[in-house]
Structure formats: C-alpha cells, structure tokens
C-alpha cells in the first residue's frame, strides 16, 4: 500500500540560488587597483594602513573606502563605487 503523502507549504522565499562561484584571481597585484574597505570597526584602520604600505611597495594602486557604520549593510552607492574603481577589494572585519 502506498504511504500517504503529506503536503506542506514552503515557508521560505522559494529562491534556490545557484551555488556561487569564486571570481577569477589575478596572478599579480602590480599595476592593479586594490580597494581597502574599512567597515568602521575599531582598529580596522591599523590593519588597513599596514596593508596599504605593503601593497604600494608591490606596485599596486591603493584606494581607501569606509562604511558609515559597521552595524548596517554597505550603502549601495559605495558598493557600486568600489566595483567601478577597483580590480580587487580587501575588507577589514576585525575589532
């Protein structure tokens, strides 16, 4: 005898995004523009300042960005700006 089937209604947004793939990695940062994003957590700037020095030594152009507050998602305009201006972005998350 077939077992009865229970029908339930999907409680989710019903989107099943395809697995995200990692973008291609550049072989070298020399001559590329690297964005450094400070999410506005304390001492994130210390980490990014050091990274900026190291990247500049290796021939990368560094551009600095900051979120207004770490407690909220990045403004859409800032995201667009970074996408338009940079080849690579590094984000400082730590306290």
């Amino acid at each position: 005898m077939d077992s009865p089937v229970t029908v339930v209604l999907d409680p989710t947004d019903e989107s099943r995004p395809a697995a995200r793939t990692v973008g291609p990695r550049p072989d070298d940062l020399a001559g590329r523009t690297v964005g450094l994003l400070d999410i506005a957590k304390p001492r994130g700037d210390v980490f990014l300042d050091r990274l900026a020095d190291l990247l500049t030594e290796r021939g990368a152009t560094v551009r600095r960005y900051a979120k207004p507050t770490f407690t909220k998602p990045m403004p859409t305009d800032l995201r667009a700006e970074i996408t338009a201006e940079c080849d690579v972005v590094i984000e400082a998350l730590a306290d």
Partner: protein
Amino acid sequence: MPPVTTTATAAASTSPEVPADGLVVVVKQDCPTCRLVAPVLGDLGATVYTQDDPAFPPGVAVRDDTDLDASVALGIDVVPTLLRREGGRETARAEGWDRATWRELSGVADLGADLPEWKPGCGSRTHDPAVADAMLVRARGHELAARRVELAGLEDEAEALYDRGWTDGLPVVAPTPPRVLRMLAGTTRAPDEVVAVVPPNLVPATVEKVAINAVLAGCRPEYLPVVLAAVEAACAEEFNAHGLLATTWGAGPAVLVHGPIARRIGVNAGGNALGQGTRANSTIGRAVQLVIRNVGGGRPGEVDRATLGQPGKVGLCFAEDEEHSPWEPLSVERGVPAGASAVTVFASEGPRGVVDQISRTPESLARSLAVALRGVGHPKLAPGFDAVLVLSPEHVAVFDEAGWDRARFTTTLAELLLLPPEELARGADGIEEGMPEPTRPHPKFRREGLMVAVAGGGAGKFSAVLGGWVGGPGGSSPVTRIIEEA
C-alpha cells in the same frame, strides 16, 4: 418553531448542478431520520442528493454529493432537508422530518401516512470534523500561492521539516494547507498582501508566508494580527534587523504586546511572564524569528554571527500588565492611543533578575535598580546598549505608594545613571575596558534608550533587566506598531 422557513436571502448557488427550480432533498445514509423518510423520497418528484452513500436511498435516482459541493452550495445544516427553489433561489426550507410541512411543500396530500408526525434530523456531513479540512481546502485553497512541498509517507514529519532547514532546532508544526487556511482566518488581511520586506535578503513577505511561519511556530490563529504587526515592526528601517542579526553580540528581536489584545489572546503579563508555559508568549516571538530565518534568510552561522547568542533568540514575547499596573502604559508613553493594541519590537538579550527585598523607599529602590542597569553591556561603557527594565508588581508598588509616576521614576533613573568620567575611563578599577579619556559624565542610556514595562507575578521583590544592543541610528531603535485590526 415555524414549520416552513422562508429564506429569501439564501445565498445564490454557484454550482451549476444545483437545480434552479423544483424540490431538492439532501440526505445521508448514516442518519436514522433519513432512513425513516427514504420510502417517501420517490414520491416527491424531487432531486435527491446523498452525502455519504450514492446507493442510498435504494430505488431512488440520487445525485452523489459525497464531495459535499451541492450541500455547501445549498447551505445544508441538517439532514434530511427539503427545500424548494424557484428561478435559482431558495423559497422554502424544512429541516428534519415534519409531515405537515413536507406535505405542504411537496403538494403530496398523503405523503408519509405511515410515518410519525415529526422526527428531528441529524447534522449535515458538512459539519463533520473529519471532512472539515478537505472542505476548507476545496473552498479556499485557491487563495494559497506558496509552493507546495510533498513529504513522502515514510518521512517523519518533524524530521523532514528540520532536514529542510525550516526550523530553529525545535520541532515545528507542519504547515499543511488546512492549518495555514485556519491561521489566515485570524486576520482580515488578504493572503497576498505584502507585510514587510524581510532582511537580510530583503524578501517581500506576504500575509500567507507569515501565516505559514506562524503555523510552524505553533501559533493559534488569533495570534496572527500580533505576529503580522511584529514582523512589520522588526523589518522597519530603524529596527535594523540585518545589523542585529549580523552582529556578534547575542541580542535578538523581542516582542512586547500592549493593549486589550494581550489579554484577549492570552499573552502572559503575570507570573513567569518571561518564562515558559504560555503558548502565546512561547510562539509569537518564535514566529517572528522563523520569518526572519525562512523568508529573510537570516540563519545562525550565515548572516547571524552571534558569538554566544542566548535562549531568547528562539523567541521572546510578553505583555505589559496594564490592568494591574498603577502607571500609564509604556505604549501610551510611546505614542499609542490609550486603549489601543500594539506591539513594540526591541533588541533584547535574555532577562537578568534584580533582587531588592529590603528597600521600602523609592529613593533606595531606584538606586538599586540603577546599579543593576549599569551592568548592561559593561558597567564602564556609556552610553552603551539600550535596555528594557521589567518592574515587578511589588517593586512598582514601592514607587506608586510614594506617589512616583512613570515620568518621575525614569527621570530619577536617568540622573542616577549619569556616570562620572573617572569611573568610566579605560584602566579605572584596574579594568582596561572602558571609555577612552572621558572628560565629562556620560549617561548610561541614550535618550529613549531605556524602556520600563510592568509585568510579573504578585509575589517577589524581583525585577528584571533585558539588555539590548547599540541603540539609535547607529544600531537598532525599538519600533512600535499599532495593531489596526485588533
């Protein structure tokens, strides 16, 4: 009882199979009165519908109404029912067997001469609880737009729903179409109406989606207006649910219910108001969290980065005891008209109790409570996080008996919580944590960063502090929404 009920207002039939003119009888084999009248049914010249057995009554041409569509269309409450229709409308009805009435309606003068004069009928199968769900789905299932997911017969229901990632780790109630339709009956809002755009994925949530998650959470239909208002509040820009979810801090959205709806649906504001054992308290906050998880996509380990979390994140909901509180309700202070029902959603940790069994003066008790409130987040951070103080009846009585109202109490607390810079500085008290070089007193809480609600059982000089999270535009502000349909 009048023998013939004239029903000029009877709903016009939507079923094409129901005769527009003539006599109609509806019976079921399971009913003794129907079996009693079976022999006369062939003499009526009526269309006979049978609700349970298409072979009943024997020898009579019957229409099979085992799916009950005709019975629903005709509004049958009792079997047997004899009714007369003219021009698509019902003009007369007799329920049960009443010989004189049936003779009058049918025009058959000697109808049922061998039968008793009168015998009451039985309940229509449309009222049988065993078929109620199927009928509900047939009547209103088209209103449901959510994707239907089939669980195989051999799958354990609780396991299957957990495996699909739809739960908070506790078992949930399977959101079957009948259950969701019954939940939707708790609101006057249309199932396809968008309630809010839910963070973090910013997905529009319809009333139906919220209802599905309310079923999962274990809510009763009468809780749904509260859940809808709470979801709307939690998704407001100033509540910043995305930030609250993503922070490594452990607070989550908590729901405070105001006004008469709390008592009507049974939200506990008395003994153990912050604890277990009351269905509304245990499920309303949980439904909000499940909406954020399932619709918004906010899950622990993904966008939810809490270092520790806390058990209130399963769902925290309680009400202010406005009935017994001597003070103006918190909701009125927050701009809700007196007597209206509302919810306030705020960022909250789990409660921490505050003991003071000795203070009998408002000055002493206020100082006690201020010391306890100073610990929110860290005693040396100010303004740090928002908080909610839940004052117990025995504690609020101390203030009330001394003539202190809500405003005087909160003003005094604010004065007591203006913390001197030398105590806040980094390194003070041998503690590195603290404020960097403070030069002036700092308030422990920002303006509007401390809400006070009265709740709890009659005995116990204990209140509770619900620590929050970063308050204001840089974090989360409590959001109050009036429940319009309450």
